[in-house]
């Protein structure tokens, strides 16, 4: 690592630690720790959502994939605004109106009891841990390449900083680190975009034409190899779109705002940020293929993960490379912090506070549990990252999306919207979604190579419909009867009204359109 890179790296780490220190001073309660006191504004949360979602895999990986694979690489980006529009339409406001700290709170608002909460908390832990491990290993490898440091040192730095942010600063620090990260990443991408455009006389289509003429039509058109590979690709896209709506670390961000109106504004802001960001990526990707060269990109990293860094060095020299590397590092930390918060919320609030302590845990006990859960989550992430340095664990990320789409999404949507949904159906859907996703991936080529029992790796196209079907069938064959049916109907009516209007029986706590939203400022 040279002196410029070290300086930028140190400066950004210092900024994140100052944010953490200020957040730690403000963080007094469990609500502050888990959901930033629910006091972020819609705009702030929207930018944080973008920071939570856009991982190094998006920032670096999608660009590299377009540089090397052409159009097919864009499948990893084009679904994002669509997924967040679906989140805005179907889950953002109900989540804010029904939830407190976790996704399990939403289910528990209609189906109180320890079994449902345990199932959703376990599903949250599984999804977040799978995603966390994939991010941890990928991040450590990336940091090793970007900063030319030892793998173990990279793991220790990433794990140590993530632990400090989440344990001391909680969701408030995590949110502001994500906001800073999004801002830096947008600046970084915009500079790269303009520098590439300058090479094409500021014609936004110049990079596409150039790619067409240099590499042929295959570089700008969808590519297909076999029907099974196409099925796998479609399954991945379905899993990604629907998975976003069930990803706990993304969805709990809607709990950090004061009301449904701010949740809506969060999603709209995030969609604008995603649109601005992902529309720049194809130009940057094709620019990298032209200006750096496909062979040179593939030589540094076979999946093209260093294409952005190589392009930055080509266009802006060592200083710009150092800036891109530092931004990529903060990107990694911001996403990991969000994942750790989702995992610790499920463990400390759901499993410890509601299941083990049956809802009577003291705030101090819950915070103590959160700190232990944070240490354990980061410790497991670091241990797996150290053990799996030479393993390909990238498939775990798409598995996390598929599990989220299969186990969490049907449970959430049917609980909020379907009158006939039952507790048994929720449990069945979560179990089937979880088991089917894991079984398919265990038998897939991603783990077993060409000799795998099944020919595709992404389970979503099978596991999501199956989970939905099982949920519906179980609900239809085991309806409540007699007095119980009346009670269930009343609970659904109340839950539905609260989810969709914010109005709760016996209260008048519906925000008026003129309500002023306070902001979650630091310090």
């Amino acid at each position: 690592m040279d002196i410029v890179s070290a300086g930028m790296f140190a400066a950004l780490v210092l900024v994140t630690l100052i944010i953490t220190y200020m957040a730690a001073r403000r963080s007094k309660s469990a609500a502050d720790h888990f959901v930033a006191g629910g006091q972020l504004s819609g705009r702030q949360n929207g930018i944080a959502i973008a920071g939570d979602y856009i991982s190094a895999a998006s920032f670096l990986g999608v660009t590299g994939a377009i540089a090397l694979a052409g159009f097919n690489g864009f499948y990893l980006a084009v679904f994002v605004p669509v997924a967040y529009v679906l989140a805005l339409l179907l889950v953002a406001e109900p989540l804010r109106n029904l939830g407190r700290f976790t996704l399990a709170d939403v289910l528990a608002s209609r189906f109180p009891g320890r079994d449902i909460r345990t199932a959703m908390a376990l599903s949250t832990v599984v999804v977040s841990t799978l995603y966390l491990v994939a991010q941890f290993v990928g991040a450590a490898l990336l940091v090793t390449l970007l900063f030319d440091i030892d793998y173990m040192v990279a793991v220790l730095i990433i794990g140590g900083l993530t632990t400090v942010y989440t344990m001391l600063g909680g969701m408030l620090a995590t949110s502001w680190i994500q906001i800073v990260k999004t801002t830096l990443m947008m600046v970084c991408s915009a500079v790269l975009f303009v520098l590439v455009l300058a090479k094409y006389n500021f014609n936004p289509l110049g990079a596409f034409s150039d790619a067409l003429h240099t590499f042929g039509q295959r570089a700008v058109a969808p590519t297909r190899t076999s029907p099974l590979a196409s099925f796998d690709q479609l399954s991945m896209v379905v899993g990604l779109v629907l998975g976003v709506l069930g990803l706990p670390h993304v969805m709990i961000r809607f709990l950090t705002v004061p009301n449904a109106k701010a949740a809506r504004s969060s999603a709209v802001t995030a969609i604008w940020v995603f649109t601005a960001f992902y529309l720049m990526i194809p130009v940057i990707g094709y620019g990298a293929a032209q200006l750096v060269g496909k062979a040179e990109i593939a030589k540094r990293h076979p999946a093209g993960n260093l294409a952005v860094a190589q392009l930055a060095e080509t266009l802006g020299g060592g200083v710009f490379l150092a800036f891109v590397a530092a931004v990529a590092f903060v990107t990694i930390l911001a996403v990991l912090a969000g994942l750790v918060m989702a995992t610790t919320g499920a463990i400390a609030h759901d499993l410890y506070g509601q299941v083990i302590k049956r809802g009577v845990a003291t705030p101090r006990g819950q915070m103590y549990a959160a700190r232990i859960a944070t240490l354990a989550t980061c410790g497991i992430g670091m241990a797996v990252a150290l053990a799996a340095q030479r393993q390909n664990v990238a498939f775990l990320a798409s598995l996390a999306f598929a599990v989220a789409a299969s186990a969490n999404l049907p449970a959430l949507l049917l609980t909020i919207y379907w009158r006939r949904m039952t507790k048994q159906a929720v449990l069945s859907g979560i179990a089937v979604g979880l088991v089917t996703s894991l079984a398919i991936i265990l038998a897939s080529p991603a783990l077993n190579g060409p000799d795998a029992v099944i020919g595709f790796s992404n389970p979503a196209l099978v596991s999501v419909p199956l989970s939905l079907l099982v949920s519906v069938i179980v609900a239809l064959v085991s309806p409540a009867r007699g007095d119980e049916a009346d009670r269930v109907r009343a609970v659904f009516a109340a839950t539905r009204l609260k989810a969709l209007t914010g109005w709760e029986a016996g209260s008048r706590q519906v925000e008026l359109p003129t309500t002023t939203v306070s902001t979650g400022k630091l310090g």
Partner: protein
Amino acid sequence: MTEESIDQQAGETSPEEVKALEDIAARRIKLALTSAVAVCAIFFPLPILGQFTGALDGLAFGGLTWAWVYSFLQFAVAILVAARYAARAADLDTDTAEALRKKG
């Protein structure tokens, strides 16, 4: 929410008020579901046509294939649907506040 709490609170709520809120909830569901179906109907042909047919392989203009044009369309659709939903949902918020104000 428990059965007890619902029973206790039911007495504080007028049937007209609940009816008005249920109407608003039904309108919100209709708006969300129709918008979601429209978004899915526009989006999912992209991977289906792109992966199983050559319909999007042809050149449209300026180095862009129809696949790129269709992909960029998704972003415009997302922005438009989000803006339309946000505006309509704000109207529903006003209706909700109005329904409670009338009775409250």
